[in-house]
């Protein structure tokens, strides 16, 4: 015969009182913070799309840049797109391998010696240098001797990208568990082999996305290009000589113009730039996923 006892209903919820309230407050604060961040971003995107979408067309993407007075339906941003791609590609080719190698030295070889400390320190300092200073720096040491060129712009952008690549690659390398290195050493691998065949492949996903981040940053920079490419409006297929142009630079110029047509083209350029950055992000995700397929 079961005797049913009067049991207290077990209440496992957070007891009423300050803790529950403060939990709620903080949760709402976090949501608020998120909204505050997302809303302006949304604004920017929406504005750009709204203002620039109408002008985008194949003609826009390939035609040469007309004078500012020209109305919106004439001409396009072709040279700027070419310029952006040229200059950013050059900068990437210079900065990314250098940055990866630097990070490898810092993490795998340098240890606690003075050179590693030096490199690390200066790399961190460089992250904080304003981009226009980079432009001025390249102006002084390169442009004054060799003239304006896309290559000079690439140098300036490269200087911007380098510390980002070093820092992110370094962090990714550090995340590779030491057990993997030991496993490789125990099979009779040299340090270089260990780094190349085990550490780098394991960190590659993260390294690539770090590099992509750097590229995305460089794509949108204007200030360092001011003193290095001498913004022009013609296509210059040779990045090594002669002035050049880029999308951000054109946006800068066009936004300053009082002419409606120029402004419209500026918006179109802005939208194009955002799309390029977006495409870079997607490619980065794809590459990361491909390289990390063994990490699951």
């Amino acid at each position, binding site marked *: 015969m079961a005797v049913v006892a009067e049991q207290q209903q077990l209440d496992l919820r957070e007891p009423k009182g300050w803790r529950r309230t403060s939990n709620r407050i903080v949760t709402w604060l976090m949501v608020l913070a998120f909204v505050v961040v997302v809303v302006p971003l949304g604004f920017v995107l929406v504005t750009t799309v709204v203002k620039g979408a109408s002008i985008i067309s194949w003609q826009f993407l390939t035609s040469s840049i007309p004078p500012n007075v020209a109305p919106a339906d004439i001409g396009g941003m072709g040279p700027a797109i070419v310029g952006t791609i040229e200059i950013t590609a050059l900068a990437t080719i210079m900065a990314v391998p250098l940055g990866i190698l630097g990070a490898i030295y810092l993490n795998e070889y340098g240890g606690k010696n003075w050179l590693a400390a030096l490199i690390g320190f200066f790399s961190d300092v460089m992250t904080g240098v304003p981009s226009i200073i980079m432009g001025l720096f390249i102006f002084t040491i390169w442009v004054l001797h060799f003239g304006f060129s896309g290559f000079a712009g690439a140098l300036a952008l490269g200087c911007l990208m380098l510390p980002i690549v070093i820092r992110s690659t370094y962090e990714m390398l550090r995340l590779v568990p030491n057990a993997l290195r*030991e*496993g490789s050493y125990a099979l009779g691998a040299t340090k270089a082999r260990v780094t190349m065949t085990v550490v780098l492949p394991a960190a590659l996903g993260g390294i690539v996305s770090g590099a992509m981040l750097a590229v995305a940053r460089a794509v949108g920079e204007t200030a360092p290009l001011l003193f290095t490419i001498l913004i022009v409006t013609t296509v210059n297929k040779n990045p090594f000589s002669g002035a050049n142009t880029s999308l951000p630079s054109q946006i800068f110029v066009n936004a300053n113009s009082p002419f409606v047509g120029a402004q419209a083209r500026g918006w179109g350029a802005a939208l194009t730039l955002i799309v390029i950055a977006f495409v870079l992000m997607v490619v980065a995700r794809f590459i990361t996923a491909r390289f990390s397929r063994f990490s699951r």
Partner: protein
Amino acid sequence: MEQSEQDVATSTQLPKSQVQATTSADAFDTGTHIFDVDKVSCYYSSFRAVTDVSLKIHENEITAFIGPYGCGKTTVLRTLNRMNDLIPGAHVEGDIRYRGASLYTKDVSPIAVRRRIGMVFQKPNPFPKSIYDNVAYGPRINGERNKAKLNEIVERSLRGAALWDEVKDRLKASGLGLSGGQAQRLCIARTLAVEPDVVLMDEPCSALDPIATGAIEDLMKEIKSRYTIVIVTHNMQQATRVSDRTAFYSVLRNEESDTRTGVLVEYGRTEQIFQDPQDPRTQAYVTGRMG
């Protein structure tokens, strides 16, 4: 019964009676000596982790290192294939001879040493590559490019590690997707693929369940006729199940200088260590009374 001789460095102030290891006479007879560890002390910078260890490892035997935490058994194991070189500040006094040749002279390449003396670690550490690439890794870095030869090596090593039947249909799958026991066997296959002479194992089963442990122990007994195995283990039943000889290490505390160091207390055939231990410290440890 033979006593090994010890010269206690005056700087250590360790009582001689405690530093001397007890070694049974037959530890030195019969069979080839693969390793001759000769008065080895290991330092991490200025910290002396292990003091004056001397013993001989026999070919085609399984030798177990047992002892409490901090007694230096893993340190000694790692000196056998120069893995301690990877730790900054680590250095070794004394000599270790492998098949008669010293491992610690200046012209010895640690890379060459590790190709002949492999190591399996406590936590299985398969590379984030495919199963095939994991096993083929060693031969590849040794220069093997021939596809057919690599296929043969991979199959042979996986068979040798009793893993072939379980993975033969998914050699391209990630090595990280295996269970603990399988992953450890993969690491063993990877080690066997370079055809070493000696396999060192640092608590290979401590992260595994009893079934996986049993599989690995069977594996050890099966391959010992072709290799020499030295295993560090916390599990004394494992030592009794698989090893031919057992070395018991302990921690020696110096009260005045407040230092600790690891010492070899007793080394002999496993049945003797676990049935008739000579040293009271061995007796206290194996019966679980004291560490």
